């Protein structure tokens, strides 16, 4: 009887540890870091682009600071609209403010007719501009940049 009692408690704790293990392995998945570490992701990206290709978009200033979105080749919409990839909660952003899209191996930013404009580093974006790694893009109070 003593054995079964202790055994059950051990199993209960094993369940807790297993759950925590799932949590640990999942920690980076939601932030987009782990997704880029998956074998499937790595292979397809390596073959498509060089090793210095941007892999994620990071918000460096503003209310959403720290948000990361992993780039998978699909365009990224930024604005206050609910269906944007990056939903901004900012009085200075427009409903559809800007779009980041990939052409060839490079990412381009274009302004979607926003009221207050989009800035790449210091320059106002009027036509699609190529976005180098680590260059700040300013949208309202939010600053984002691409990282590898």
């Amino acid at each position: 009887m003593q054995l079964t009692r202790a055994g059950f408690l051990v199993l209960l704790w094993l369940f807790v540890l297993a759950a925590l293990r799932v949590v640990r392995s999942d920690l980076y998945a939601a932030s987009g870091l782990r997704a880029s570490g998956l074998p499937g992701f790595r292979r397809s990206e390596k073959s498509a682009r060089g090793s210095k290709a941007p892999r994620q978009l990071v918000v460096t200033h503003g209310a959403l600071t720290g948000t990361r979105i992993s780039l998978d080749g699909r365009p990224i919409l930024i604005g206050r609209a609910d269906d944007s990839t990056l939903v901004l909660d900012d009085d200075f952003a427009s409903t559809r403010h800007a779009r980041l899209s990939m052409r060839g191996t490079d990412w381009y930013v274009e302004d979607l007719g926003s009221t207050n404009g989009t800035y790449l580093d210091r320059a106002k974006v009027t036509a699609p501009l190529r976005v180098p790694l680590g260059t700040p893009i300013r949208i309202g109070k939010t600053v984002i940049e691409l990282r590898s």
Partner: protein
Amino acid sequence: MGSPVPAGEGSPGASAATNTSPGLKAPTRRGTELVMLSFAAGLVTLALILVELNQERSLSLRILYLGLAYLGLFACAHLAVRRWAPYADPAILPCVALLNGLGLVVIHRIDLALEGTVFPDGSTWDPVAFKQVIWTGIGLLMFAATLKFLPDHRMLARFGYTFGLVGLVALLLPGVLPGFIAPTINGAKIWLRIGPLSLQPGEFAKILLMVFFAAFLVSKRDLFTVAGRRFLGMDLPRARDLGPLFAAWGVTVAVMVLQKDLGSSLLFFGIVLVLLYIATERAAWVVLGLGLFAGGAVIAWKLFNHVQQRVANWQDPIARYDMIGGGYQISQSLFGLATGGIGGAGLGAGRPEMIPEANTDFITAVIGEELGFVGFAALLLVYMVFALRGLRGAISVRDSFGKLLGGGLAFAVCFQVFIVVGGVTKLIPMTGITAPFLSYGGSSLLANYILVALLLRISAAARAPQRVAKPKPQQPAIADQHTVMVERPK
């Protein structure tokens, strides 16, 4: 890149399911969930076997079938998740399955202990474990239905005010209705009796009001932040922004006075405060709210007899052991916990019949007696993992409504556990409230399964890869068109 290996990928079934195509596909981790669910079902079956052994009942294949049926029930829930929310969090459902299963086993165990007991009024104990199994089934149905009919949690925000009104009515209804529909049970007037069915509308109101508050705060948050910017350096919110807080406080007090239900009022007020705090990130709200609550609590204590009783029972339950409405319940619960000690008496080997209300408010005391501190701590950690995953989903979801609602839902479960376990262990005055997923009670179980479905929906939205935005032809509005100089023809 030394990325950690997912727990489920060690087993063949999981690895096949988590990463089927090598293309651009984020892992859904449904395989991991299934493995964890099987683990939970195994634990629950083992718990049932231990109870039957310790109660010296004959073991039969029936138990195995029960365990398999339990696994089947949650496998259906798992399939529902797989179909309607494939990217949902893999840790939430197994935690719920374990808690609910252990709750069922303990309720069955209390049935065994109370079997054949004749109460002073001549009635005998009516086994409730089977009813709870049916409630679990209905709860899982509601869970699947919520996932199916709510493909996007942002749909809820549209009905914010409707939900708020319905929730408020549901919360206050039992307090104002006459006694034959809303009977007073154990001093609290929180039930509605319709025919043979007893409902606790407050459990559902909890979720409805959370949806309302999240939607309300999201739509008004811009206002809050703009105002905050204008009053730079001024820590306190403006007087007219205090309206919602005062309204919530008023409802809380009404619940306390009309229904004599301390637990729900505390829970409700805590949820409102946390939602306000998450929305505004200003500690001033919490300080103000706690001040208000403290004031209200002191006034309630001065005015109402039942509050004074609860507080006196909390301060010294053993001195008031023999009084009517005295410290008997808490004393018995403390005796039970003391008997359990570190390692517990063993499942089925304790004496839960000594603890009053053993299968509802004091079910955690029974678990503490039979599993001991070690098992009880593990159980609280399971709750913690559940809340952790809920909060994680809330952090990573991209819309503010989802963030607020997810945070509020996860916090509500945590806070409810705190209130009930705090009461049972004499940390805070005992207030009658159910332990989520463990206690016997249909309304509580149904409401909590809807809550889990909402949390899964939010986590699925957070973890799903981005949808391809359809390239819409950009037609700037006429107001946004550049001004063009039209030259007058000469």
